[in-house]
C-alpha cells in the first residue's frame, strides 16, 4: 500500500539518508529507528506529504502521493512532536475539533467516553494548558481512538507517557493492525507490538 | 480596643459580616437616592443660566467623584493584598473595579449629555474630560488583565501591580493633560460653573453623592461575596454554607 522508492533526504548541507526503500502492506507496522538527528522526523513528514524528498518517490496504493492530495489525507493520520492541541480549549473541545478537522465528526458523549478511556476522566472540562505533559499527550493521542483512517504515522507517541498509558497505546496499535490498519512510528523507548508484518527501518 | 482584625480578614467571617451589612447599605442607598432626587427635582430652583439642564449635576458630579475615589480605594486594597498577601483585600479590589468603571462611564455619559445643550457639542478635548476618559481606560485595563488570568492568585497580584502603577500615574496624567490643554489658547468653551451654587443644589448633590457611596459599598460587598464563593467553593465552610442554604 505505502511504498517508498529510493528516498533521499537532504537538510542544509547534510544528506541525512539515501536509498531508503520500503513497502508496507495492510496489517503491517514499520518502526523507524536511529540515533538523534538521523532523520526519522524528516522521513515521517515526507510520508505525509508535508515536505518533499530530494529524490525518490512515495506512493500510496500505487499512486504518487503528490498527485493524490485530499484523497490521501482521507486515509492518513499524522501525530507529530507537536500535539496540535489548543491550550485554551478543554480536552473535549480539542478532541471534537481535531477529529472534525480530520473529517470524522463526533458528538460530545463520544468524546467524553474516549477521554475517559485514555484516563482523563474528570479532567475533560479543564483547559488543556493546566494539564501535565503526559495528559496533553493523551489528549492528542485520543484522536487515534476515533480515527477511521488506514495509515497512522506517529512520531514518538510514547514521549512523556507513563507505563499504563504506554500499555494502552500498545493495545490500541495492535487492535488497529489486527483490523488491517498500517502504522509507521518512531520511538526511542522499547515497545513490543504484535503485528502481521513487523519491519524495522534503521537510519544512519 | 481588643478587636481581632485578623478575624475579619478571614473570608468566612467576612462573608457572614458582609451578608449582614448589605441590607443596611442598600436601604441607605435607596433612601438617600430618593431624598436626593426629590431635592434635586422638586426643591432645587431652576438655574438662571442653564435652565433645567443643570439638573444633570445631581448624577454627574457624584458619578465623577465616585469614579476617582473608587480607583484610589481599589488601589489601596490591591496594595494591601500585595504587601500582606491577604487574599480578602485583593478580592475587595477586584470587586470594586466594575462599579468604579460604571461610575466613570456614567460621568462621561452624563457629562456629554450635559455638554450638548451647554457647549453645543457632545465632547471637547478638555483636560478634565480627557483625564476622566483615561481613567476609564485604566479601569478597563485592570479588569481585562484580571479577566485574562485564570489563576486567581496571579490575577490578584498582577492586578495590584497595574493598579498601583496607575495610581502613581493619575496625578501625572491629570497635570499633564491640564497643562497640555492650557498651553494652547485653550478649549473654546469652558465649564460654566455658577460661582455661588444655591444651597439646596449643594445639598442635593451631597445627598446624591452619599447615596452613590452607599450603593458602591453595597455593590462591593455583594460582588466580593460572590467572588469569595467562586474562589473558595471547595473549602469546607462554603460547603457547609451551601448545605445550610439548601436545608
Amino acid at each position, binding site marked *: 500500500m505505502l511504498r517508498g522508492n529510493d528516498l533521499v533526504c537532504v537538510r542544509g548541507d547534510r544528506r541525512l539518508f539515501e536509498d531508503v526503500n520500503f513497502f508496507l502492506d495492510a496489517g503491517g507496522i514499520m518502526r523507524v529507528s536511529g540515533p538523534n538527528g538521523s532523520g526519522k522526523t524528516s522521513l515521517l513528514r515526507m510520508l505525509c506529504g508535508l515536505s518533499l524528498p530530494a529524490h525518490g518517490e512515495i506512493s500510496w496504493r500505487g499512486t504518487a502521493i503528490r498527485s493524490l492530495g485530499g484523497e490521501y489525507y482521507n486515509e492518513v493520520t499524522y501525530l507529530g512532536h507537536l500535539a496540535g492541541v489548543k491550550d485554551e480549549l478543554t480536552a473535549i473541545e480539542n478532541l471534537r475539533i481535531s477529529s472534525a478537522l480530520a473529517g470524522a465528526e463526533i458528538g460530545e458523549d463520544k468524546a467524553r467516553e474516549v477521554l475517559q478511556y485514555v484516563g482523563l476522566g474528570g479532567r475533560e472540562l479543564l483547559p488543556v494548558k493546566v494539564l501535565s505533559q503526559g495528559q496533553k499527550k493523551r489528549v492528542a493521542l485520543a484522536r487515534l481512538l476515533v480515527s477511521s483512517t488506514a495509515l497512522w504515522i506517529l512520531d514518538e507517541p510514547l514521549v512523556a507517557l507513563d507505563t499504563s498509558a504506554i500499555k494502552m497505546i500498545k493495545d490500541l496499535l495492535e487492535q488497529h493492525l489486527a483490523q488491517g490498519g498500517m502504522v509507521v512510528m518512531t520511538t526511542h523507548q522499547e515497545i513490543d507490538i504484535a503485528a502481521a508484518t513487523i519491519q524495522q527501518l534503521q537510519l544512519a | 480596643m481588643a478587636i481581632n482584625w485578623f478575624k475579619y480578614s478571614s473570608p468566612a467571617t467576612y462573608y457572614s459580616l458582609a451578608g449582614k451589612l448589605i441590607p443596611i447599605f442598600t436601604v441607605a442607598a435607596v433612601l438617600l437616592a430618593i431624598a436626593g432626587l426629590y431635592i434635586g427635582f422638586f426643591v432645587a430652583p431652576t438655574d438662571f443660566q442653564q*435652565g433645567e439642564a443643570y439638573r444633570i449635576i445631581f448624577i454627574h458630579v457624584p458619578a465623577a467623584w465616585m469614579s476617582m475615589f473608587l480607583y484610589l480605594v481599589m488601589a489601596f486594597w490591591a496594595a494591601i493584598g500585595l504587601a500582606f498577601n491577604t487574599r480578602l483585600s485583593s478580592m475587595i479590589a477586584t470587586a470594586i473595579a466594575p462599579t468604579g468603571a460604571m461610575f466613570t462611564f456614567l460621568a462621561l455619559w452624563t457629562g456629554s449629555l450635559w455638554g450638548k445643550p451647554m457647549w453645543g457639542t457632545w465632547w471637547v478635548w478638555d483636560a478634565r474630560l480627557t483625564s476622566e476618559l483615561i481613567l476609564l481606560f485604566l479601569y478597563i485595563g485592570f479588569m481585562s488583565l484580571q479577566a485574562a488570568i485564570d489563576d486567581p492568585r496571579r490575577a490578584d497580584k498582577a492586578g495590584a501591580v497595574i493598579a498601583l502603577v496607575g495610581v502613581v500615574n493619575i496625578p501625572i496624567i491629570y497635570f499633564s493633560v491640564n497643562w497640555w490643554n492650557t498651553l494652547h489658547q485653550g478649549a473654546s468653551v469652558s465649564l460654566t460653573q455658577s460661582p455661588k451654587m444655591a444651597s439646596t443644589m449643594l445639598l442635593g448633590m451631597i445627598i446624591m453623592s452619599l447615596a452613590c457611596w452607599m450603593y458602591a459599598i453595597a455593590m462591593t460587598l455583594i460582588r466580593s461575596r460572590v467572588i469569595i464563593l467562586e474562589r*473558595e467553593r*471547595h473549602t*469546607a465552610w462554603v460547603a457547609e454554607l451551601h448545605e445550610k442554604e439548601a436545608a
Partner: protein
Amino acid sequence: MNWENWSEFFAMGGYGFYVWGSYVVSFVCIVGEVMLVSKRRRTLQKQRGLIHEPTTKEIENETTP
C-alpha cells in the same frame, strides 16, 4: 414645587432628552450591574452540585490568609 404638571416635568424646560437621558441610563446601568452580579451568583449555585467533589479532602488552611 417647581412643576405645574407632569408634562412640564418631563419636558425639563426643553432639556428633557438630556436630563432624562442621563438619569435613565444611570438607572439602567445600576440595574444592569445588579442583575449581572445576581446572574453570576446564580450560575455559581447551579454549578455547585456539579463541581463540588465531596471526595477531595477539604483545604482548611486555605480559608485563612
